[in-house]
């Protein structure tokens, strides 16, 4: 008979042997697995743009999170093109010293690059005229250490800063918005916008429009009440707050509110569409991106999933979670709302990017809003009215719903995938982490394609009763994710907006958790969770060049003109976030339910990458 120690020794030896055998085989599968047939490849050069940009980004600088107000992440720079991209090389690299998920992107203003690190949320100013010299300055906001364990699953990320009026403005994890003088690095003002003790945190990037700063909160997994704050850029004073739940006055719904669909009209729906007072812990946070239309003077953003994932605990539509809001940029008054998943069953947070373009739609010029949804559907919305114009699957495995009824704006759900206490519902696609995460897409008027970083993961969902204990997560679900069907977990999807279908896709072993950048040189940039940074042909999807950075990429690329007038591209290399957190040492791979279920799909990630903290700049 073997003792327990003997059994453990044998098990360990087996693990080592199997691990040794599996390693090279796994490594080989990391290659790009396949590319679907190319269908409609737009002609190169000369053709009319597929749509019109409403707020082109400033030439050569990157002063807002998405480069421009409309969140296109499209740059007019074209020195790097499909012919010469293969000659790209690393110009500079530097370490931030914080080995956590580097989401978001740097800014470039006035020959200075500004980098916000994960917690403790340092702001670093890098002189582009002396890349290998000393930092210009480093600002330390000293956030409350308790905020680290309140960071919505599963990492202490920050999605970057915005520039306006000579200030760099960003949020710290402990709910402060700070403005820092862009030239001196001295704090100009600091405003507390939330309470970290209740689990409220702040990781989203602000948007600055004229004299106003817009910031959203995080902490949907902690039963936080979602909100958007508008601050005065010169003083930091809070001008107004728009909550995601509560009375119409709390949500800033008034006489101007005209939603397209009947289900989004009615009084005090932010409270009445919940059981009793449950809206007070209703989630619907705003951790993502905010867009602005200068002509309509409206801002657009999406809200997160409703508080507590166990849907049985919150009967009703649970407004205004999983909602796209259109608001007057000055007053904050809501113009319309479109709830994407009434009574969400899956933890699908819809706080992702909304991309604004003007384009002919079925022969008629329209102001469009593109929302590649967490739930797997590519939503095209009229941004003046809130009408849903198109909702096609962009990740094939999506099965919680078969589509949307464009007449009612409602999803056509599969009842067999509805989640309830006491049953484990398996094979729900996508997983809670979504058909895409929070890192944003890019769009090119030269190709008419939207480039979506996508995930192909499914899940088993076990709804369990949850107690609300302030400062602890309010989840009520044991989730275990699995790789989706098809032998790949990530895709870069080129979505043909006009024809409402995929043009082509580049598939990868792991979910694509990086943001995307499109350029006038017909080159698209993005990264993979293993750490590859790629330049691809915007029309064909051919990989033109790639560079292996040391850690997985969960940030978004930017491009700018250097002091020498040459075009450069910058990207963070530092794995983390939700799916990426599985690379961290303090997450065990023998619990597929760990990291809110991500380990079930991502256990192999540790074999490919580990925590990192780098900023890379590429050029010629």
């Amino acid at each position, binding site marked *: 008979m073997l003792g327990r120690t003997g059994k453990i020794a044998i098990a360990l030896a087996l693990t080592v042997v199997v691990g040794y055998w599996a390693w090279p085989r796994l490594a080989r599968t990391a290659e790009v697995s396949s590319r679907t047939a190319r269908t409609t490849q737009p002609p190169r050069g000369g053709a009319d743009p597929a749509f019109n940009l409403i707020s082109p980004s400033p030439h050569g600088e990157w002063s807002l999170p998405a480069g421009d107000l409309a969140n296109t992440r499209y740059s007019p720079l074209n020195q790097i093109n499909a012919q010469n991209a293969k000659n790209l090389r690393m110009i500079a690299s530097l370490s931030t010293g914080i080995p956590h998920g580097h989401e978001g992107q740097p800014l470039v203003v006035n020959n200075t690059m500004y980098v916000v690190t994960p917690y403790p949320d340092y702001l670093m100013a890098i002189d582009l005229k002396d890349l290998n010299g000393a930092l210009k300055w480093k600002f330390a906001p000293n956030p409350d250490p308790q905020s680290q*364990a309140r960071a919505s699953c599963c990492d202490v990320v920050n999605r970057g800063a915005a520039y306006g009026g000579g200030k760099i403005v960003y949020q710290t994890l402990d709910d402060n918005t700070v403005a820092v003088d862009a030239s001196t690095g001295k704090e100009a003002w600091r405003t507390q916008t939330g309470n970290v003790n209740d689990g409220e945190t702040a990781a989203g990037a602000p948007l600055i429009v004229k004299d106003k700063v817009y910031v959203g909160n995080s902490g949907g997994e902690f039963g936080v009440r979602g909100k958007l704050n508008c601050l005065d850029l010169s003083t930091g004073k809070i001008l107004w707050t728009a909550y995601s739940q509560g009375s119409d006055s709390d949500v800033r719904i008034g006489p101007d509110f005209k939603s397209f669909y009947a289900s989004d009209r009615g009084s005090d729906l932010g409270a009445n569409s919940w059981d009793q007072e449950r809206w007070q812990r209703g989630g619907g946070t705003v951790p993502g991106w905010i867009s602005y239309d200068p002509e309509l003077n409206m801002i657009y953003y999406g809200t997160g999933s409703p508080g507590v994932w166990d849907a049985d605990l919150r009967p009703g539509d649970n407004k205004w979670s999983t909602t796209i809001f259109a608001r007057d940029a000055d007053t904050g008054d809501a113009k319309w709302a479109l709830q994407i998943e009434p009574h969400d069953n899956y933890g699908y947070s819809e706080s992702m990017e909304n991309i604004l373009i003007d384009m002919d739609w079925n022969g008629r010029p329209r102001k469009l809003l593109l929302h590649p949804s967490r739930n797997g559907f590519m939503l095209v919305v009229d941004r003046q009215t809130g009408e849903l114009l198109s909702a096609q699957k962009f990740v094939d495995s999506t099965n919680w719903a078969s589509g949307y009824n464009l007449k009612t704006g409602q999803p056509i759900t599969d009842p067999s995938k509805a989640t309830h206490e006491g049953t484990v519902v398996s094979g729900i696609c996508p997983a809670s982490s979504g058909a895409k995460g929070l890192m944003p897409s890019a769009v090119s008027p030269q190709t008419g394609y939207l480039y979506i970083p996508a995930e192909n993961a499914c899940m088993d969902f076990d709804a369990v009763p949850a107690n609300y204990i302030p400062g602890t997560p*309010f989840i009520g679900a044991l989730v275990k994710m699995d790789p989706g069907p098809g032998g790949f977990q990530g895709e870069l999807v080129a979505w043909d907006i006009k024809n409402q279908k995929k043009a082509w896709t580049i598939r990868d072993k792991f979910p694509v958790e990086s943001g995307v950048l499109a350029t006038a040189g017909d080159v698209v940039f993005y990264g993979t969770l293993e750490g590859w940074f790629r330049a691809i042909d915007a029309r064909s999807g051919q990989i033109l060049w790639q560079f292996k950075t040391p850690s997985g990429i969960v940030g978004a690329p930017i491009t700018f003109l250097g002091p020498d007038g040459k075009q450069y591209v910058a990207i963070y290399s530092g794995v983390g976030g939700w799916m990426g957190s599985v690379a961290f040492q303090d997450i065990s791979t023998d*619990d597929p*339910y760990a*990291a*809110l279920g991500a380990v079930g799909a991502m256990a192999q990630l540790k074999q490919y990458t580990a925590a990192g903290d780098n900023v890379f700049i590429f050029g010629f």
Partner: protein
Amino acid sequence: MQLRLIALFAVLLALALAGCEQQPNASAGAAPPMSVVVGPVPGIGSPPQGQADPYANDVLGMAQGRKLFVWYNCYSCHGGHGGGGMGPSLRDRVWIYGSSDAQVFHSIAEGRGKGMPAWGLKIPQSQIWELVAYIKSMRTPQEPEPPR
């Protein structure tokens, strides 16, 4: 010899520093003396370092600990079955604040620096010991509801 000198110097320095710190207390008059030794692993007070979990190897206690692990939302930070997430894994062999029953008890009761809440005043001690029993059972054949 040199080591002894260093040790002597350290003791003298500690005494000198302690003297400095005591001065404001001395003038205030009423502060109670702090005499509990804090070692490299934080955690003070009763139960003593050596106390064993009354529910160790108790199948019912471990199962109850598993229930409490879900009931008190522990799984949302530390993973569905303790593999980690927002908080560190409890399944690996890394114990930042010590692995003895009493040390794990202290970590739960007192909370820890990066945001672990202090449960000592929120839940009964017996439940903390049941949680300890469940946590210590992870990766053993006795683990209730092992992950699959």
